[in-house]
């Protein structure tokens, strides 16, 4: 019997004009009533296409049917079988190209709002202190995890659940990786969500030691040889910013998105109680089209500047999540597509005054199917601005591979690790997340952490 047709339930959002001036979360999420209504749209498919498109094969129809029955505790337990970070993934997964992109309802109409439902359940579980696992008695084996981003947290939690003594070493002064320093408050609240996700992991008995840089403060070898860890999981992310190599890139006022976002998020520069300085001009140009670029440009806007995205392909190719592009537009961000910078120009004191760009057009599709942008001759023009933020992508930091004998990397600087287990070229050392794949997504990083947790357990048991 066909279900009664209900329109997709839209989650409430802060008014664009108001939110463009604050750092509160943009999307307010579902109420119980809204979640129940949205959940009722799901057909509980026998062969769910959505599940195939989720990188961790979250049991989507199952958790949604628990919502339909009003049993949120079971919904949250069902999710926790596959994901440890529902409140995070529900907010930041690129759902349109994953779960929701394949939802059967999406063929003719609008897909189920899987992400928003997942977020609802995750937040509900937190607000209601639902314990998903208890700390286990120590099994006598220690594992060190490098980095406290999604990959590290997931691996640590899974190992702690089966009795390992796990310690995470984090270079920065706060745990969470990109969730803490990169993704802004208005998309992923730090205290309400990230800190509590981290607390959950700690409540399983995982220790987190911040301010330890593996490769400098300690090394992988010293962890194994001197501190007695049986295995190490490297989840150090891909934090190294790229620059374009064009003229004027070292002028005052040119920063990487990482620097800008770290100052704003991790160091709370937008909050005047904090000491961190941030330089936000009247006019900011952000170069790039990914999530990082959207986050930087929206942060600049919130700090009071006129903010523009410059991207060399067309809007269709923007790699950022659809929702973020949409939100950015609502907030009044300018988009200059098919535009590529060729130089940055400074005033007599060495501060940015404009950026020279060229107009691009898309050529034939290359082998990868992407149409590569080509310069239109004679199309140079200047955009006046006083800050330029480079959001061109990042690559893994070489610090760990350079200081660990036998830990090999590929041409792109990514740690070589097998897909199944995350085993690296060095015995006892596993790796996963952005450190292995290059900049990717939260859910992939989390999935990699969980796979390696299993592999590390097998490795230690058979050692």
């Amino acid at each position, binding site marked *: 019997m066909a279900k009664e047709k209900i329109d997709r339930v839209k989650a409430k959002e802060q008014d664009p004009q108001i939110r463009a001036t604050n750092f509160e979360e943009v999307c307010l999420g579902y109420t119980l009533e809204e979640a129940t209504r949205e959940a009722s749209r799901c057909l509980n498919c026998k062969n769910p296409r959505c599940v195939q498109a989720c990188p961790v094969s979250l049991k989507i129809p199952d958790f949604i049917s628990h919502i339909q029955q009003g049993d949120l505790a079971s919904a949250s337990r069902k999710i926790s079988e596959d994901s440890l970070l529902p409140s995070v993934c529900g907010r930041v997964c690129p759902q349109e190209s994953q779960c929701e992109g394949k939802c059967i309802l999406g063929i003719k109409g609008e897909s189920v709002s899987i992400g928003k439902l997942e977020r609802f359940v995750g937040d509900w579980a937190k607000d209601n202190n639902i314990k998903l696992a208890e700390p286990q008695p120590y099994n006598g084996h220690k594992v060190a995890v490098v980095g406290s981003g999604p990959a590290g947290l997931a691996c640590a939690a899974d190992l702690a659940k089966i009795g390992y003594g796990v310690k995470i070493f984090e*270079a*920065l*002064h706060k745990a969470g990786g990109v969730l803490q320093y990169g993704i802004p408050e208005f998309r992923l609240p730090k205290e309400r969500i990230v800190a509590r996700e981290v607390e959950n992991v700690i409540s399983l008995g995982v220790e987190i030691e*911040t*301010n*330890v*840089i593996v490769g*400098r*403060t*300690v090394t992988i070898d010293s962890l194994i040889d001197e501190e007695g860890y049986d295995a190490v999981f490297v989840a150090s992310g891909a*934090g*190294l*910013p790229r*620059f374009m*190599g064009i003229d004027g*890139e*070292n002028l*005052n*006022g040119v*920063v*990487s998105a*990482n*620097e800008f976002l*770290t*100052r704003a998020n991790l*160091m*709370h520069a937008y909050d005047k*109680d*904090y*000491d*961190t*300085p*941030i*330089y936000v001009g009247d006019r900011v140009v952000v170069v790039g089209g990914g999530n990082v670029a959207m986050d930087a440009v929206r942060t600049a806007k919130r700090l009071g500047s006129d903010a523009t995205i410059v991207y060399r392909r067309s809007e269709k190719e923007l790699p950022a999540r659809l929702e973020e592009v949409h939100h950015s537009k609502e907030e009044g961000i300018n988009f200059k597509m098919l535009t590529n910078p060729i130089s940055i120009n400074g005033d007599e*004191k*060495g501060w940015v005054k404009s950026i020279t760009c060229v107009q691009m057009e898309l050529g034939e599709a290359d082998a990868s199917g992407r149409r590569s942008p080509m310069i239109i001759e004679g199309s140079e023009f200047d955009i006046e601005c006083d800050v330029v933020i480079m959001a061109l992508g990042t690559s893994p*930091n070489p*610090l760990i591979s350079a200081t660990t004998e036998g830990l090999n990397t590929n041409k792109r600087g990514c740690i070589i690790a097998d897909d199944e287990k995350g085993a690296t070229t060095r015995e006892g050392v596993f790796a996963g997340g952005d450190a292995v794949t290059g900049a990717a997504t939260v859910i992939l990083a989390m999935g990699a952490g969980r796979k390696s947790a299993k592999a590390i357990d097998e490795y230690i048991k058979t050692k």
Partner: protein
Amino acid sequence: MYKITQKKDLAPNIFLMDIYAPRVAKSAKPGQFIILKTDEKGERVPLTICDYNIEKGTVTIVIQIVGATTQKIADLNVGEELDTFVGPLGNPSEFIFENLEELKDKKILFIAGGVGTAPVYPQLKWLHKNGVDADIIIGAKSENYVLFEEEIKKVSANLYIATDDGSRGFKGLVTGCLEDLIENHDKHYDVVISIGPMIMMKFVALTTKKYNIKTIVSLNSLMVDGTGMCGACRVTVAGKTRFTCVEGPEFDGHEVDFDEAMRRQGQYKTIESRKAKALEEKRKGHKCKVGLN
């Protein structure tokens, strides 16, 4: 949390602190630095490691009060704790990887300026311990600002002092003193290692270029994370962009674009001076209250 175990004034607005940070103490090498944050809301500031004691688990830093954060550090006392103290960062001085015998044959001169004298000390100490002699010129505003003189005397071959006002030693800049040593005292050097204000290192490099002496400088660019993540610390060396925190802090002084480096250092000046003023007001307010009680 990282406890302050010692605090000592060295000169007007310059003081020393020992911080309990056993992991840093254990791994520290000459030439490296740390990043600290006083409290939850503080800013991350880089400071050079001036000494380390593995047994006590402490690291010595020497700080000059120049703005809000360094003032906040100065306001802390023994027994209080820092929120963050991470390191050692950056690469150790190049010479610790060199062949000792070859090193012993080299005539090394350190040129230190102001608070930059403190970070020279662990380098000299390391060399001295390994049987390598080195000379040093310490430059200071005046007699009162000469740091670590006693300590440095013990680990250096010849110690020269240059003061701006001539209240001690050579009257004039360190570059003048260097020229004097070479021109009038028949001194010859193979390597100069210079640490101090950017402007001083710039002129040291210009001077040594004249004499064709290899010169290493230790750059103190602005930093945030200190791990290569942000690029705030980028400098141009031999025409290429380099990250001071992971590829430095030491570079070939003849290849550094000092003008750019100095310009980049001033990026947050207006914002910072506003902050410093606010802190000053707060501190004054504090004093007033005490007065009233």
